[in-house]
């Protein structure tokens, strides 16, 4: 369920908004008339903006409260849609906008309570008669406290929800993790066993090669004075070298047999699950494909997978949660460009996590982004891989935004197409 929500950008919000509008709006329509549909609609619309265009959510909530007050309506059930917006934005929104939304929701709540208690000539609540002004103030205070409590509860529940989803996971996530761990444990045990065998075989090889060297040295010394000894040494050298070769063959067979067993290198199709996993970790990751893909050999597909994988690892390492990252494949008739862009710096600034929040970026940052060559061990390895397919790779800081990695393969079809 949560995976489906994260895989789709707008559909979950639209479905939720429509459902809520149908239920809550319907109840409000029945109890308060057609005018109640306007604030109900606005409250439900605010749910649309829990992950995209976050600033529109508090605007919609504020407009819903204004409409409700201006129409002089009593308490509406659709106000709970506002609480749901607070909850969901606390889970999925950025720091600033989830704060703004909860404040707006509180203020809207106060205003509605004020309207109900003071403007609508309220005479009694739940059988209790409101006899004087003091009773109204007590009622308003109670309503305000309830409003704050509900909003705070929604906020806390939202944060709890996202924390649980990100760091604990669902039952199926944990089950998958356990399964993966078990599989990896078996793999590690198998690899350890193989390593032991390889070590033993290597020991034997060292022994055999050492014997060959020793015999050659001996033969070299005796050849001049005792030809018969030298010939005996040659026989020994031959048998020792053959024994070495057999040990080497065993080692070769073992290593290559295992290679076949585990040789299912990742392909381009395996990138999509990684992008989804990025979303589950809390990044706004998306993947697009432009043009018509052509078939590539395994090596080229592995190379492309490695590029995207390393770029996404870099995003995880260097950016904050909520960063948008896009993986774009541009296929041409002969080649391919892979572009991985993130807005890590922008997100960090927007979240107020950086001291440069109010400064944006400077001319120096801009210049630095233009002239500084991004380099590193991983990038160097990727460059070597990419060069095998006549490609090039470029990494750039985009001042005030984030990081871009571009891999260009102009002749990929000719080099690795099948």
């Amino acid at each position, binding site marked *: 369920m949560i995976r489906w929500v994260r895989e789709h950008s707008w559909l979950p919000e639209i479905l939720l908004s429509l459902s809520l509008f149908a239920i809550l709006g319907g109840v409000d329509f029945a109890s308060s008339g057609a005018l109640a549909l306007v604030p109900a609609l606005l409250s439900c619309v605010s749910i649309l903006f829990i992950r995209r265009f976050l600033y529109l959510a508090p605007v919609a909530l504020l407009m819903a409260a204004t409409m409700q007050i201006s129409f002089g309506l009593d308490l509406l059930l659709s106000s709970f849609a506002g609480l749901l917006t607070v909850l969901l934005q606390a889970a999925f929104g950025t720091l600033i906008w989830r704060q703004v939304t909860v404040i707006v929701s509180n203020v809207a709540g106060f205003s509605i309570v004020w309207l109900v208690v003071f403007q609508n000539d309220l005479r009694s609540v739940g059988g209790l008669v409101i006899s004087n002004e003091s009773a109204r103030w007590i009622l308003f205070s109670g309503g305000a406290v309830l409003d704050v409590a509900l909003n705070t509860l929604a906020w806390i529940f939202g944060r709890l929800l996202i924390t649980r989803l990100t760091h604990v996971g669902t039952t199926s996530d944990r089950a998958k993790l356990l399964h993966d761990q078990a599989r990896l444990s078996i793999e590690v045990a198998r690899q350890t066993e193989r390593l032991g065998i390889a070590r033993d075989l290597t020991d034997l090889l060292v022994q055999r090669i050492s014997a060959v060297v*020793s015999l050659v040295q001996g033969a070299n010394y005796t050849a001049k004075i005792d030809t018969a000894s030298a010939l005996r040494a040659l026989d020994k050298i031959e048998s020792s070298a053959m024994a070495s070769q057999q040990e080497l063959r065993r080692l070769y067979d073992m290593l290559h047999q295992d290679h076949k067993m585990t040789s299912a290198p990742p392909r381009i199709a395996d990138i999509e699950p990684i992008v989804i996993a990025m979303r589950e970790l809390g990044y706004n990751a998306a993947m697009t494909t432009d043009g018509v893909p052509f078939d590539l050999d395994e090596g080229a597909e592995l190379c492309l997978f490695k590029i995207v994988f390393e770029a996404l690892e870099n995003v995880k390492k260097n950016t904050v949660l909520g960063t948008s990252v896009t993986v774009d494949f541009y296929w041409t008739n002969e080649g391919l460009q892979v572009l991985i862009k993130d807005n890590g710096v922008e997100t960090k600034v927007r979240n107020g996590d950086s001291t440069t929040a109010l400064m944006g970026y400077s001319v120096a940052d801009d210049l630095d982004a233009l002239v500084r060559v991004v380099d590193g061990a991983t990038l160097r390895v990727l460059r070597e891989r990419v060069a095998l397919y006549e490609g090039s790779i470029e990494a750039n800081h985009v001042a005030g935004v984030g990081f871009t990695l571009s891999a260009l393969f102009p002749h990929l079809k000719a080099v690795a197409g099948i």
Partner: protein
Amino acid sequence: MATGIRVGLVDADSSIRLGRRMVLDAALDMSVVFEEDSVARVIDKFDDYLLDVLLVEQRLRGTTGIELTEVLTEIKIANANNTRILVTSVFSTPELELSAFKAGASGFVSQDLGPHYLLEQIRKINSRSVLHSRGELHSLWENAAQTVSNDVSLSLYLENLVEVEVKTLKMLVEGHQGSTVSQTLEIPLYRVRKSFERALTALHLATLEQLQLRFIGAGIRSE
């Protein structure tokens, strides 16, 4: 009756032993009088062969050359056996070399250094001269990332010696030959030898290299 340097070979691999034997037999000044692949039999027979130099390969069945050297060194100390041990190995590392010297080996030769070097080392070891300077062993100590710590028994032993004996030991540890020490300190050569033998006995050591490493390990320098 074998002439020249009496050499013994301990190696689990018969082909390696054959190769070594051919090299040693081709040298006119040494002969192989003992050859063994079993560690137990080596320990049993070690004292019976009056060997000058015993070549112990690091890779043995059930143990290592260094462990065997430790056992043989105990036998040497107990029976005043003068056989010198040379540890051989396919590869060399500072740790391995240092361990061999600590165990009581007088030399260490890896296969990649070649048969010429092996023969040269056997001759040097047999000459009973000082083979390693303090500086060489100190470099080895540092390369093997060893640390210096207080050696109470060595300090106490040196405190109870007369000044000339301390100087004698320090000069030997530095790598000076006995004759040079004798001339410098103006004492007879036999006193130099006696000082050295007394030190080995008191500190339960068998070789000069072990004594040098004790000085290095304790951080004791010559003035």
